[in-house]
Protein backbone atom coordinates (compact mmCIF):
# COMPACT_ATOMS: atom_id res chain seq x y z
CA UNK A 1 0.00 0.00 0.00
CA UNK A 2 2.66 2.51 0.98
CA UNK A 3 5.27 2.03 -1.71
CA UNK A 4 7.57 4.88 -2.63
CA UNK A 5 5.85 5.15 -5.97
CA UNK A 6 2.40 5.64 -4.48
CA UNK A 7 3.74 8.49 -2.39
CA UNK A 8 5.06 10.32 -5.45
CA UNK A 9 2.01 9.79 -7.61
CA UNK A 10 0.44 12.74 -9.39
CA UNK A 11 -3.04 13.57 -8.24
CA UNK A 12 -5.41 13.13 -11.19
CA UNK A 13 -8.84 14.72 -11.35
CA UNK A 14 -9.79 13.65 -14.85
CA UNK A 15 -9.47 17.18 -16.18
CA UNK A 16 -6.27 18.26 -14.52
CA UNK A 17 -3.55 17.15 -12.16
CA UNK A 18 -1.31 18.29 -9.40
CA UNK A 19 1.82 16.81 -7.94
CA UNK A 20 2.42 18.17 -4.46
CA UNK A 21 5.84 16.58 -3.98
CA UNK A 22 7.41 18.19 -7.04
CA UNK A 23 5.89 21.50 -6.01
CA UNK A 24 7.28 21.19 -2.50
CA UNK A 25 10.75 20.38 -3.83
CA UNK A 26 10.59 23.33 -6.21
CA UNK A 27 9.40 25.57 -3.41
CA UNK A 28 12.30 24.50 -1.23
CA UNK A 29 14.80 25.20 -4.00
CA UNK A 30 13.21 28.56 -4.78
CA UNK A 31 13.19 29.36 -1.08
CA UNK A 32 16.90 28.63 -0.93
CA UNK A 33 17.51 30.92 -3.90
CA UNK A 34 15.42 33.67 -2.33
CA UNK A 35 17.22 33.33 1.01
CA UNK A 36 20.62 33.49 -0.68
CA UNK A 37 19.52 36.50 -2.68
CA UNK A 38 18.20 38.12 0.45
CA UNK A 39 21.49 37.36 2.18
CA UNK A 40 23.23 39.84 -0.12
CA UNK A 41 21.17 42.62 1.43
CA UNK A 42 22.01 44.77 4.38
CA UNK A 43 20.53 43.16 7.48
CA UNK A 44 21.14 45.91 9.98
CA UNK A 45 18.92 48.56 11.42
CA UNK A 46 18.94 50.68 14.53
CA UNK A 47 16.77 49.01 17.14
CA UNK A 48 14.67 51.02 19.60
CA UNK A 49 15.16 54.31 17.81
CA UNK A 50 12.76 56.51 15.90
CA UNK A 51 13.42 54.22 12.96
CA UNK A 52 11.28 51.45 14.35
CA UNK A 53 8.30 53.62 15.21
CA UNK A 54 5.23 53.14 13.03
CA UNK A 55 5.06 55.66 10.21
CA UNK A 56 2.09 57.99 10.62
CA UNK A 57 3.19 60.80 8.32
CA UNK A 58 5.28 62.27 11.10
CA UNK A 59 2.54 62.27 13.72
CA UNK A 60 3.27 60.72 17.09
CA UNK A 61 2.10 57.17 17.57
CA UNK A 62 -1.27 56.54 19.21
CA UNK A 63 -1.93 54.10 22.00
CA UNK A 64 -1.41 50.51 20.96
CA UNK A 65 -5.12 49.75 21.13
CA UNK A 66 -5.82 52.45 18.61
CA UNK A 67 -3.03 51.41 16.31
CA UNK A 68 -4.77 48.07 15.77
CA UNK A 69 -7.50 48.44 13.17
CA UNK A 70 -10.64 46.69 14.44
CA UNK A 71 -11.85 43.70 12.52
CA UNK A 72 -15.28 45.19 11.88
CA UNK A 73 -13.61 47.90 9.81
CA UNK A 74 -11.73 45.44 7.64
CA UNK A 75 -12.98 45.01 4.07
CA UNK A 76 -14.82 48.27 4.21
CA UNK A 77 -14.68 48.75 0.43
CA UNK A 78 -16.10 45.32 -0.16
CA UNK A 79 -18.98 45.52 2.27
CA UNK A 80 -19.69 49.08 1.21
CA UNK A 81 -20.16 48.30 -2.46
CA UNK A 82 -22.36 45.29 -1.70
CA UNK A 83 -24.15 46.92 1.19
CA UNK A 84 -27.66 45.89 0.21
CA UNK A 85 -26.63 42.23 0.16
CA UNK A 86 -25.13 42.28 3.62
CA UNK A 87 -27.94 44.34 5.09
CA UNK A 88 -30.57 41.93 3.87
CA UNK A 89 -28.51 38.99 5.07
CA UNK A 90 -28.22 40.52 8.51
CA UNK A 91 -31.94 41.06 8.58
CA UNK A 92 -32.47 37.39 7.75
CA UNK A 93 -30.55 36.20 10.83
CA UNK A 94 -32.93 37.20 13.57
CA UNK A 95 -31.68 34.83 16.21
CA UNK A 96 -35.26 33.85 16.96
CA UNK A 97 -35.86 30.12 17.15
CA UNK A 98 -39.40 30.44 15.77
CA UNK A 99 -37.96 31.87 12.59
CA UNK A 100 -35.58 28.95 12.35
CA UNK A 101 -38.54 26.59 12.46
CA UNK A 102 -40.36 28.76 9.94
CA UNK A 103 -37.46 28.47 7.50
CA UNK A 104 -37.62 24.72 7.90
CA UNK A 105 -41.30 24.72 6.99
CA UNK A 106 -40.64 27.03 4.04
CA UNK A 107 -37.89 24.79 2.69
CA UNK A 108 -40.15 21.79 3.13
CA UNK A 109 -42.86 23.58 1.19
CA UNK A 110 -40.47 24.53 -1.60
CA UNK A 111 -39.12 21.00 -1.86
CA UNK A 112 -42.68 19.70 -1.86
CA UNK A 113 -43.62 22.01 -4.70
CA UNK A 114 -40.48 21.21 -6.68
CA UNK A 115 -40.55 17.46 -6.19
CA UNK A 116 -44.26 16.77 -6.36
CA UNK A 117 -46.05 19.58 -8.16
CA UNK A 118 -43.09 20.35 -10.41
CA UNK A 119 -42.66 16.73 -11.25
CA UNK A 120 -46.27 16.41 -12.33
CA UNK A 121 -45.87 19.53 -14.43
CA UNK A 122 -42.79 18.10 -16.11
CA UNK A 123 -44.65 14.85 -16.58
CA UNK A 124 -47.54 16.70 -18.17
CA UNK A 125 -45.24 18.49 -20.58
Amino acid at each position, binding site marked *: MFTLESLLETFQTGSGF*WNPIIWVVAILVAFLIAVILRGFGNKEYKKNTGQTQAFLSGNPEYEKEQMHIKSSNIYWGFTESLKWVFDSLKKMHTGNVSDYALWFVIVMAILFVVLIVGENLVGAI
Partner: protein
Amino acid sequence: MDFLQISQTAMMVIIGTIALALFGIFFGLVYKGIDRKLSAHMQGRIGPPIRQPFRDVVKLFTKENIVPENAIPWIFNLAPLVGLVATISILLYLPLGGFQPLFPGKGDLILILYLLIIPSLAMVIGGFSSGSPYATIGAQREMATMIAYEFPLAIIIITIAWRLSMQGVTNVFALSSIAATPVWNIAGPLGFIGFIILLLVLVIITPAELSKIPFDSPEAETEIAGGLLTEYSGRNLAMFYLTDGVKTVVMASLIVALFFPYNLSPLFGLESYPAFAVDIAFYLAKVFLVILFSVTLIRVAVARLKIDQIVYTYWVPLTLLSLVGLICIMWDQTIMANFGLQPVFEMLGIV
Protein backbone atom coordinates in the same frame (compact mmCIF):
# COMPACT_ATOMS: atom_id res chain seq x y z
CA MET B 1 9.80 4.26 -10.98
CA ASP B 2 13.16 3.41 -9.57
CA PHE B 3 15.69 5.41 -7.68
CA LEU B 4 17.46 6.59 -10.85
CA GLN B 5 14.31 8.10 -12.28
CA ILE B 6 13.42 9.76 -9.02
CA SER B 7 16.84 11.34 -8.74
CA GLN B 8 16.64 12.43 -12.38
CA THR B 9 13.30 14.12 -11.75
CA ALA B 10 14.66 15.69 -8.60
CA MET B 11 17.66 17.07 -10.48
CA MET B 12 15.32 18.39 -13.15
CA VAL B 13 13.21 20.15 -10.54
CA ILE B 14 16.24 21.67 -8.86
CA ILE B 15 18.03 22.85 -11.99
CA GLY B 16 14.78 23.91 -13.62
CA THR B 17 13.74 25.97 -10.63
CA ILE B 18 17.10 27.71 -10.47
CA ALA B 19 17.04 28.48 -14.20
CA LEU B 20 13.44 29.67 -14.12
CA ALA B 21 14.05 31.82 -11.06
CA LEU B 22 16.93 33.59 -12.78
CA PHE B 23 14.92 33.90 -15.99
CA GLY B 24 11.87 35.30 -14.19
CA ILE B 25 13.82 37.78 -12.09
CA PHE B 26 15.92 39.00 -15.02
CA PHE B 27 13.10 39.49 -17.47
CA GLY B 28 10.79 40.80 -14.78
CA LEU B 29 13.22 43.62 -14.12
CA VAL B 30 13.86 44.20 -17.84
CA TYR B 31 10.17 44.51 -18.58
CA LYS B 32 9.77 46.76 -15.59
CA GLY B 33 12.44 49.03 -17.02
CA ILE B 34 10.81 49.05 -20.45
CA ASP B 35 7.45 49.78 -18.89
CA ARG B 36 8.83 52.72 -16.95
CA LYS B 37 10.63 54.10 -19.96
CA LEU B 38 7.54 53.82 -22.17
CA SER B 39 5.14 55.32 -19.69
CA ALA B 40 7.55 58.19 -19.14
CA HIS B 41 7.61 58.83 -22.89
CA MET B 42 3.83 58.71 -23.01
CA GLN B 43 3.70 61.36 -20.33
CA GLY B 44 6.28 63.50 -22.14
CA ARG B 45 9.14 62.70 -19.77
CA ILE B 46 12.46 61.16 -20.65
CA GLY B 47 12.25 58.53 -17.94
CA PRO B 48 14.88 56.36 -16.30
CA PRO B 49 17.18 54.09 -18.31
CA ILE B 50 15.98 50.54 -18.86
CA ARG B 51 18.49 49.12 -16.40
CA GLN B 52 17.10 51.33 -13.63
CA PRO B 53 15.15 48.50 -11.89
CA PHE B 54 18.41 46.55 -11.46
CA ARG B 55 19.97 49.60 -9.86
CA ASP B 56 16.90 49.99 -7.67
CA VAL B 57 17.28 46.44 -6.39
CA VAL B 58 20.96 46.96 -5.70
CA LYS B 59 20.16 50.20 -3.92
CA LEU B 60 17.51 48.53 -1.79
CA PHE B 61 19.97 45.80 -0.85
CA THR B 62 22.37 48.36 0.56
CA LYS B 63 19.69 50.12 2.58
CA GLU B 64 18.86 49.29 6.17
CA ASN B 65 16.26 46.58 6.68
CA ILE B 66 14.00 48.05 9.34
CA VAL B 67 11.69 45.83 11.35
CA PRO B 68 9.25 48.14 13.14
CA GLU B 69 8.56 47.54 16.80
CA ASN B 70 4.86 46.96 16.18
CA ALA B 71 5.62 44.22 13.68
CA ILE B 72 5.81 40.53 14.38
CA PRO B 73 9.33 39.92 13.11
CA TRP B 74 9.12 36.34 11.86
CA ILE B 75 5.96 36.91 9.87
CA PHE B 76 7.13 40.33 8.73
CA ASN B 77 10.37 38.90 7.33
CA LEU B 78 8.88 35.70 5.98
CA ALA B 79 6.10 37.29 3.94
CA PRO B 80 8.32 38.82 1.20
CA LEU B 81 10.19 35.53 0.80
CA VAL B 82 7.01 33.49 0.51
CA GLY B 83 5.66 35.84 -2.13
CA LEU B 84 8.78 35.57 -4.29
CA VAL B 85 9.03 31.81 -3.86
CA ALA B 86 5.41 31.17 -4.80
CA THR B 87 5.69 33.39 -7.86
CA ILE B 88 8.80 31.58 -9.05
CA SER B 89 7.06 28.25 -8.59
CA ILE B 90 4.33 29.32 -11.02
CA LEU B 91 6.94 29.55 -13.78
CA LEU B 92 7.34 25.77 -13.52
CA TYR B 93 3.87 25.22 -14.88
CA LEU B 94 3.75 27.92 -17.56
CA PRO B 95 4.76 27.38 -21.15
CA LEU B 96 7.59 29.88 -21.57
CA GLY B 97 9.39 30.84 -24.74
CA GLY B 98 7.26 28.68 -26.96
CA PHE B 99 8.23 25.50 -25.13
CA GLN B 100 6.11 23.10 -23.16
CA PRO B 101 5.94 23.82 -19.43
CA LEU B 102 8.79 22.27 -17.48
CA PHE B 103 6.34 19.91 -15.79
CA PRO B 104 3.43 19.60 -18.20
CA GLY B 105 1.63 16.87 -16.28
CA LYS B 106 2.22 18.07 -12.75
CA GLY B 107 0.12 21.18 -12.35
CA ASP B 108 -2.81 22.83 -14.06
CA LEU B 109 -4.65 26.09 -14.51
CA ILE B 110 -6.49 25.99 -11.19
CA LEU B 111 -3.19 25.45 -9.43
CA ILE B 112 -1.80 28.52 -11.19
CA LEU B 113 -4.90 30.46 -10.19
CA TYR B 114 -4.26 29.54 -6.58
CA LEU B 115 -0.52 30.10 -6.71
CA LEU B 116 -1.18 33.56 -8.14
CA ILE B 117 -3.06 34.33 -4.92
CA ILE B 118 -0.06 33.55 -2.73
CA PRO B 119 2.11 36.59 -3.62
CA SER B 120 -0.83 38.91 -2.98
CA LEU B 121 -1.62 37.00 0.17
CA ALA B 122 2.00 37.36 1.29
CA MET B 123 1.77 41.10 0.74
CA VAL B 124 -1.50 41.24 2.68
CA ILE B 125 -0.08 39.29 5.59
CA GLY B 126 3.12 41.29 5.48
CA GLY B 127 1.09 44.48 5.54
CA PHE B 128 -1.08 43.32 8.42
CA SER B 129 1.90 42.08 10.37
CA SER B 130 3.73 45.39 10.19
CA GLY B 131 1.31 46.81 12.74
CA SER B 132 0.89 50.18 11.11
CA PRO B 133 -2.54 51.63 10.36
CA TYR B 134 -1.52 52.63 6.85
CA ALA B 135 -0.26 49.15 6.10
CA THR B 136 -3.38 47.58 7.58
CA ILE B 137 -5.64 49.70 5.42
CA GLY B 138 -3.56 48.90 2.37
CA ALA B 139 -3.58 45.20 3.16
CA GLN B 140 -7.32 44.97 3.61
CA ARG B 141 -7.80 46.86 0.36
CA GLU B 142 -5.51 44.41 -1.40
CA MET B 143 -7.59 41.53 -0.07
CA ALA B 144 -10.84 43.19 -1.17
CA THR B 145 -9.35 43.81 -4.62
CA MET B 146 -8.35 40.17 -4.74
CA ILE B 147 -11.88 38.96 -4.01
CA ALA B 148 -13.13 41.42 -6.59
CA TYR B 149 -11.02 40.37 -9.55
CA GLU B 150 -11.08 36.70 -8.76
CA PHE B 151 -14.73 36.46 -9.84
CA PRO B 152 -14.22 37.43 -13.50
CA LEU B 153 -10.90 35.58 -13.54
CA ALA B 154 -12.61 32.37 -12.44
CA ILE B 155 -15.22 32.85 -15.15
CA ILE B 156 -12.53 33.21 -17.80
CA ILE B 157 -10.58 30.15 -16.74
CA ILE B 158 -13.60 27.90 -16.31
CA THR B 159 -15.09 29.06 -19.62
CA ILE B 160 -11.96 28.21 -21.55
CA ALA B 161 -11.75 24.81 -19.90
CA TRP B 162 -15.42 24.14 -20.53
CA ARG B 163 -15.13 25.07 -24.19
CA LEU B 164 -12.16 22.76 -24.60
CA SER B 165 -13.95 19.92 -22.87
CA MET B 166 -16.85 20.33 -25.29
CA GLN B 167 -14.30 19.91 -28.05
CA GLY B 168 -13.39 16.54 -26.63
CA VAL B 169 -9.96 17.62 -25.39
CA THR B 170 -8.71 15.63 -22.40
CA ASN B 171 -7.06 17.27 -19.41
CA VAL B 172 -8.63 20.60 -20.29
CA PHE B 173 -7.09 22.40 -17.33
CA ALA B 174 -3.57 21.59 -18.48
CA LEU B 175 -1.82 24.51 -20.13
CA SER B 176 -0.18 22.13 -22.56
CA SER B 177 -3.54 21.05 -23.95
CA ILE B 178 -4.71 24.66 -24.11
CA ALA B 179 -1.57 25.49 -26.04
CA ALA B 180 -2.17 22.55 -28.35
CA THR B 181 -5.75 23.66 -29.07
CA PRO B 182 -5.78 27.47 -29.30
CA VAL B 183 -9.23 28.79 -28.47
CA TRP B 184 -9.46 30.84 -31.66
CA ASN B 185 -9.16 27.71 -33.78
CA ILE B 186 -12.20 26.05 -32.27
CA ALA B 187 -14.50 29.04 -31.86
CA GLY B 188 -17.30 29.86 -34.26
CA PRO B 189 -18.17 33.50 -34.98
CA LEU B 190 -20.21 33.96 -31.81
CA GLY B 191 -17.55 32.19 -29.78
CA PHE B 192 -14.97 34.47 -31.36
CA ILE B 193 -16.82 37.47 -29.96
CA GLY B 194 -17.06 35.68 -26.63
CA PHE B 195 -13.33 35.05 -26.46
CA ILE B 196 -12.56 38.62 -27.47
CA ILE B 197 -14.67 39.76 -24.53
CA LEU B 198 -12.90 37.35 -22.18
CA LEU B 199 -9.50 38.54 -23.42
CA LEU B 200 -10.53 42.12 -22.83
CA VAL B 201 -11.64 41.31 -19.29
CA LEU B 202 -8.43 39.44 -18.60
CA VAL B 203 -6.43 42.44 -19.81
CA ILE B 204 -8.34 44.61 -17.33
CA ILE B 205 -7.80 42.09 -14.54
CA THR B 206 -4.02 42.13 -15.04
CA PRO B 207 -3.33 45.58 -13.56
CA ALA B 208 -5.30 44.63 -10.45
CA GLU B 209 -3.41 41.39 -10.14
CA LEU B 210 -0.19 43.41 -10.32
CA SER B 211 -1.48 46.32 -8.16
CA LYS B 212 -1.01 48.88 -10.92
CA ILE B 213 -3.02 52.03 -11.55
CA PRO B 214 -6.04 52.25 -11.69
CA PHE B 215 -6.32 49.37 -9.24
CA ASP B 216 -3.43 50.28 -6.97
CA SER B 217 -5.46 51.62 -4.07
CA PRO B 218 -3.75 49.06 -1.76
CA GLU B 219 -0.50 50.92 -2.34
CA ALA B 220 -1.85 54.39 -3.09
CA GLU B 221 1.28 56.42 -2.32
CA THR B 222 -0.54 59.72 -2.31
CA GLU B 223 -3.14 58.84 0.28
CA ILE B 224 -1.90 56.02 2.46
CA ALA B 225 1.83 56.40 1.94
CA GLY B 226 2.54 53.20 0.08
CA GLY B 227 -0.15 51.20 1.85
CA LEU B 228 0.88 47.69 2.68
CA LEU B 229 4.52 48.47 1.87
CA THR B 230 4.68 51.45 4.22
CA GLU B 231 6.86 49.77 6.81
CA TYR B 232 8.96 47.74 4.42
CA SER B 233 12.47 48.83 3.55
CA GLY B 234 15.79 47.45 2.44
CA ARG B 235 16.04 43.85 1.38
CA ASN B 236 12.46 43.00 2.36
CA LEU B 237 11.17 45.68 0.04
CA ALA B 238 13.58 44.43 -2.62
CA MET B 239 11.97 41.01 -2.35
CA PHE B 240 8.54 42.54 -2.99
CA TYR B 241 10.05 44.49 -5.87
CA LEU B 242 11.39 41.30 -7.43
CA THR B 243 8.07 39.53 -6.80
CA ASP B 244 6.30 42.27 -8.67
CA GLY B 245 8.66 41.89 -11.62
CA VAL B 246 8.34 38.10 -11.76
CA LYS B 247 4.60 38.33 -11.35
CA THR B 248 4.38 40.67 -14.33
CA VAL B 249 6.13 38.07 -16.46
CA VAL B 250 3.89 35.34 -15.04
CA MET B 251 0.65 37.20 -15.75
CA ALA B 252 1.75 38.16 -19.25
CA SER B 253 2.87 34.60 -19.96
CA LEU B 254 -0.46 33.32 -18.69
CA ILE B 255 -2.36 35.57 -21.08
CA VAL B 256 -0.05 34.53 -23.89
CA ALA B 257 -0.51 30.87 -23.01
CA LEU B 258 -4.28 31.13 -22.81
CA PHE B 259 -4.97 33.29 -25.83
CA PHE B 260 -1.89 33.45 -28.05
CA PRO B 261 -0.17 30.07 -27.85
CA TYR B 262 1.07 30.30 -31.44
CA ASN B 263 4.67 29.88 -32.54
CA LEU B 264 6.44 31.33 -35.51
CA SER B 265 8.77 28.44 -36.25
CA PRO B 266 6.19 26.15 -37.95
CA LEU B 267 5.35 29.05 -40.24
CA PHE B 268 8.93 29.34 -41.47
CA GLY B 269 9.48 25.62 -41.34
CA LEU B 270 12.39 26.02 -38.93
CA GLU B 271 13.77 23.27 -36.74
CA SER B 272 16.16 22.80 -33.84
CA TYR B 273 18.12 25.84 -32.61
CA PRO B 274 16.94 28.46 -35.13
CA ALA B 275 13.37 27.45 -34.23
CA PHE B 276 14.09 27.88 -30.52
CA ALA B 277 15.62 31.28 -31.12
CA VAL B 278 12.69 32.48 -33.22
CA ASP B 279 10.14 31.11 -30.76
CA ILE B 280 11.79 32.68 -27.76
CA ALA B 281 12.05 36.01 -29.50
CA PHE B 282 8.44 35.81 -30.59
CA TYR B 283 7.37 34.84 -27.07
CA LEU B 284 9.26 37.77 -25.56
CA ALA B 285 7.60 40.06 -28.09
CA LYS B 286 4.17 38.70 -27.20
CA VAL B 287 4.83 39.19 -23.51
CA PHE B 288 5.99 42.70 -24.23
CA LEU B 289 2.81 43.48 -26.17
CA VAL B 290 0.62 42.13 -23.38
CA ILE B 291 2.48 44.22 -20.80
CA LEU B 292 2.26 47.25 -23.06
CA PHE B 293 -1.51 47.00 -23.35
CA SER B 294 -2.51 45.72 -19.95
CA VAL B 295 -0.03 47.57 -17.76
CA THR B 296 1.63 50.54 -19.44
CA LEU B 297 -1.23 51.93 -21.50
CA ILE B 298 -3.89 51.50 -18.85
CA ARG B 299 -1.83 52.98 -16.07
CA VAL B 300 -0.88 56.02 -18.10
CA ALA B 301 -4.39 56.59 -19.39
CA VAL B 302 -6.57 56.47 -16.29
CA ALA B 303 -6.61 57.61 -12.67
CA ARG B 304 -6.85 55.56 -9.50
CA LEU B 305 -10.22 54.16 -8.42
CA LYS B 306 -11.53 54.12 -4.88
CA ILE B 307 -11.65 50.69 -3.25
CA ASP B 308 -15.44 50.36 -3.34
CA GLN B 309 -15.36 51.43 -6.97
CA ILE B 310 -12.83 48.69 -7.68
CA VAL B 311 -15.06 46.07 -6.10
CA TYR B 312 -18.05 47.41 -7.99
CA THR B 313 -16.14 47.50 -11.29
CA TYR B 314 -15.14 43.91 -11.03
CA TRP B 315 -18.28 42.46 -9.52
CA VAL B 316 -20.84 44.20 -11.65
CA PRO B 317 -19.72 45.44 -15.07
CA LEU B 318 -16.80 43.11 -15.65
CA THR B 319 -18.51 40.04 -14.22
CA LEU B 320 -21.56 40.72 -16.35
CA LEU B 321 -19.31 41.26 -19.35
CA SER B 322 -17.51 37.99 -18.83
CA LEU B 323 -20.84 36.23 -18.27
CA VAL B 324 -21.91 37.62 -21.63
CA GLY B 325 -18.73 36.14 -23.04
CA LEU B 326 -19.53 32.83 -21.38
CA ILE B 327 -23.07 32.85 -22.80
CA CYS B 328 -21.75 33.70 -26.26
CA ILE B 329 -19.39 30.77 -26.09
CA MET B 330 -22.12 28.44 -24.83
CA TRP B 331 -24.43 29.51 -27.64
CA ASP B 332 -21.63 29.13 -30.07
CA GLN B 333 -21.40 25.55 -28.92
CA THR B 334 -25.09 24.68 -29.03
CA ILE B 335 -26.71 26.95 -31.59
CA MET B 336 -23.95 27.64 -34.03
CA ALA B 337 -23.11 23.99 -34.36
CA ASN B 338 -26.52 23.46 -35.89
CA PHE B 339 -27.48 26.70 -37.56
CA GLY B 340 -24.27 28.69 -37.61
CA LEU B 341 -21.99 29.87 -40.34
CA GLN B 342 -20.35 26.50 -40.73
CA PRO B 343 -23.20 25.10 -42.88
CA VAL B 344 -23.17 28.34 -44.87
CA PHE B 345 -19.45 28.02 -45.51
CA GLU B 346 -19.95 24.44 -46.50
CA MET B 347 -22.65 25.43 -48.98
CA LEU B 348 -20.37 28.05 -50.46
CA GLY B 349 -17.69 25.46 -50.73
CA ILE B 350 -15.15 27.40 -48.63
CA VAL B 351 -14.46 24.63 -46.18
